[in-house]
């Protein structure tokens, strides 16, 4: 999978506080990536920088190989789903979703960026030379002149490309509609030539009507008469269509419609925009995809939270962006709805094959939906990995604490895949540590095994026990430290329990000398 977006050496300061420090991040195509972290850790800032709403103080944002720092949000092929949805209150659902499609100058911007790319290398060289103190003033003058030339060349080439594209579109429209028109004309001709068919239909219709009248005369109850009407309704309608010429009328209408559509498309093509009926189709398609079929005319303020949510997603996705940014979109929904939406979002990402970059502080959400999680703290990336790897092998105390429940126990590595925890030696799998190095050991609450006290290496006293619905959450004191254990068995406060843990469930982390505990 190839990189779609890259952040290089990003720094950002707000009000004298450095919020993002030397950030480097790569995201692959077609991935569901979550930026996870507590409030204020900078994850939303990163998202906004990708979207173009904040500028980094230094560093580069690179999209598909092109540096996009200077490009404003309305030209980036990126769309955002905002916290609290930001739906336009004076427009209905349809107009909200169609909004981006009516601003279809993306195509134009794509052309322009392609043209620009072709000059990127030369521009970079010129800029480097200009910044170089050793270049002579004369040369600098020449170089600046060259930059101007390039700017003009880009403009010219862009409009040439635009014209080319316009011609292509016109040709496409022409061929499509010519074909349709041909078929339609043939149909109309066929129908009109066949005079007999109308006469036959009229005869049949008369006969049918007679038949129906006779049948009705035989019955007395109104219900039965209605049943007869119902039975022959379809047939009668079919004959009427031909007899009264409705079918030909329909074809004429269709011809008019095609004509109008074609004119609309030609007009839109001039601005490289979508024609109205294409827009309508796109909006209806996306409404279907988010399960809001028929909601087009609804007013935005009459929607429920979940519905608004979906309109916001539809509004963004309908533009087929390369990247979809989501800023804690599920925060305002209740639990059940949130869980459903998580599943739906994951499906949407797979189906649309668009890269999703999702921001949240809810680690469960992150674990559920993501292909890759980036854990942030205070503007610095703590760890990047799949949900499993982050859960099972956290890099440091922060990640271990943030993701899932964990027990972190200060221990000593004894070398040869052995570690001393609470005074007893356990086998483990890690070995990248020094002998007698002080380490932090992470054990998840569900990984402890309850064993007989005689066989146990760790003995604890139950301090509290809470029923969590699926399991019991047991807090046990072991040598002055509180451990959290999730088990199906129930215990009493004050019970002594024996604990054991398997080697692959012991995860060892280095102790960060600067860590704040």
């Amino acid at each position, binding site marked *: 999978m190839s990189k779609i977006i890259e952040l290089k050496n990003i720094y950002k300061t707000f009000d004298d506080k450095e919020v993002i420090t030397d950030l480097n991040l790569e995201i692959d195509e077609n991935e569901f990536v979550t930026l996870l972290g507590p409030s204020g850790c900078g994850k939303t800032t990163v998202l906004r920088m990708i979207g173009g709403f904040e500028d980094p103080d230094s560093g580069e944002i690179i999209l598909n190989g092109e540096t996009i720092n200077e490009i404003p*949000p309305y030209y980036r092929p990126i769309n955002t789903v905002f916290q609290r949805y*930001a739906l336009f*209150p*004076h427009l209905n659902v349809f107009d909200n979703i169609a909004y*981006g499609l009516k601003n*279809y*100058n993306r195509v134009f911007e794509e052309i322009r960026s392609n043209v620009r790319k072709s000059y990127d290398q030369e521009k970079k060289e010129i800029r480097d030379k200009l910044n170089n103190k050793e270049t002579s003033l004369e040369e600098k003058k020449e170089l600046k002149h060259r930059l101007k030339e390039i700017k003009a060349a880009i403009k010219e080439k862009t409009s040439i490309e635009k014209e080319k594209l316009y011609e292509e579109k016109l040709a496409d429209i022409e061929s499509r509609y010519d074909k349709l028109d041909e078929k339609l004309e043939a149909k109309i001709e066929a129908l009109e030539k066949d005079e007999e068919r109308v006469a036959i239909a009229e005869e049949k219709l008369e006969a049918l009507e007679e038949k129906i009248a006779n049948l009705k005369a035989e019955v007395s109850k109104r219900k039965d008469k209605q049943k007869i009407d119902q039975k022959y309704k379809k047939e009668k309608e079919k004959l009427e269509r031909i007899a009264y010429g409705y079918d030909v009328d329909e074809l004429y209408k269709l011809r008019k419609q095609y004509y109008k559509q074609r004119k609309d498309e030609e007009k839109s093509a001039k601005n490289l925009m979508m024609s109205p009926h294409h827009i309508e189709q796109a909006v209806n398609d996306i409404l279907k995809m988010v399960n809001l079929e028929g909601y087009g005319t609804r007013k935005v303020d009459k929607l429920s939270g979940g519905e608004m949510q979906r309109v916001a997603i539809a509004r963004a996705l309908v*533009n087929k962006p390369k990247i979809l940014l989501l800023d804690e979109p599920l925060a305002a929904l209740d639990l059940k709805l949130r869980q459903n939406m998580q599943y739906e979002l994951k499906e949407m990402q797979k189906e649309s094959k668009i890269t999703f970059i999702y921001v949240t502080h809810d680690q469960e959400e992150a674990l559920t939906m993501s292909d890759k999680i980036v854990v942030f703290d205070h503007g610095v990336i703590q760890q990047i990995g799949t949900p499993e790897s982050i859960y099972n092998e956290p890099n440091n105390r922060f990640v271990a604490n943030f993701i899932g429940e964990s027990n972190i126990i200060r221990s000593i590595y004894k070398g040869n895949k052995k570690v001393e925890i609470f005074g007893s030696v356990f086998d483990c799998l890690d070995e990248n540590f020094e002998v007698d190095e002080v380490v932090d050991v992470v054990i998840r609450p569900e990984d402890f095994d309850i064993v007989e006290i005689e066989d146990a290496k760790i003995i604890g006293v139950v301090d509290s026990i809470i029923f969590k619905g699926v399991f019991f959450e047991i807090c046990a004191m072991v040598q002055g430290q509180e451990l959290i254990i999730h088990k199906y068995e129930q215990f009493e406060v004050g019970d002594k329990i024996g604990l054991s843990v398997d080697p692959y469930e012991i995860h060892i982390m280095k102790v960060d000398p600067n860590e704040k505990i």
Partner: protein
Amino acid sequence: MMIKISTRKKLKQVSAVLKAFFVILVLVILYLPILYIIIQSVNADGTGNTFGGITFRWYSELFGDPELMDAIVNTLSIAFISTAASTILGTIFAIGINSLDRKRKQRLIFLNNVPIINADIVTGVFLMLVFLTFGRLIGINYPLGYITMLIAHIFFSIPYVILSVLPKLNEMDPNLYDAALDLGSKPSEAVMKIIVPTIRPGIITGMLIAFTMSIDDFIISYFTTGGGVANFSIWLYTNRKATRFHALPKAYAYNTVIMVLTLAILIIYNIIQRRKVVKN
């Protein structure tokens, strides 16, 4: 129990009647001068001392009085221009103020409220002093006139517009503008297509208040005009002692026209609104 309920009912009925009576009484007193104006505007007796029969000649004589017509034209032109200017400027400034950080926002809002809180007469004096001082600095000895009156009107109208628009901006989802950009709109387009329609009620309220303040203003205009340029209120004040002469009936006529127009616009607007609701 039964007796208590019926007395309660009776009490409620009596109190309802009393309440209605009270409100109507107050309204009558409030409207007395207005009724007087309407009646006098068609009174054949120009001095207003007796009722001399109905006539509409004051309405036509209205146009024949150059001084009064000048004043009316000034009033209306200044009202329209200053309302348009202050609505547009006020909206732009409100958007600017709304995006400031809290401290600066508070300071500017405080400054904004000063003309509203200040007594009319003090605001009038303030403006007069500024105009005179600037005039001296530039070398104009008599700077006061139509332009200064116009500036004054714009000055005291903008705060009302800002005060109406700011709350609407506050209520607005802060991400709306970014959402418009995100979907491909350039900044000016985002403002016109998204922000303005969303705050429209505030803009309209502000516009109406600005218009009302301007068309009725006396004292600020009084201090900031010169060279004989008068608006309707000033004309009225200057001619207030002229009751014995045929000055006032025309004024009453003008005012009645304005009142009737305003009422008509209100009613038509209401009817249009009702039709819209029925359509939906």
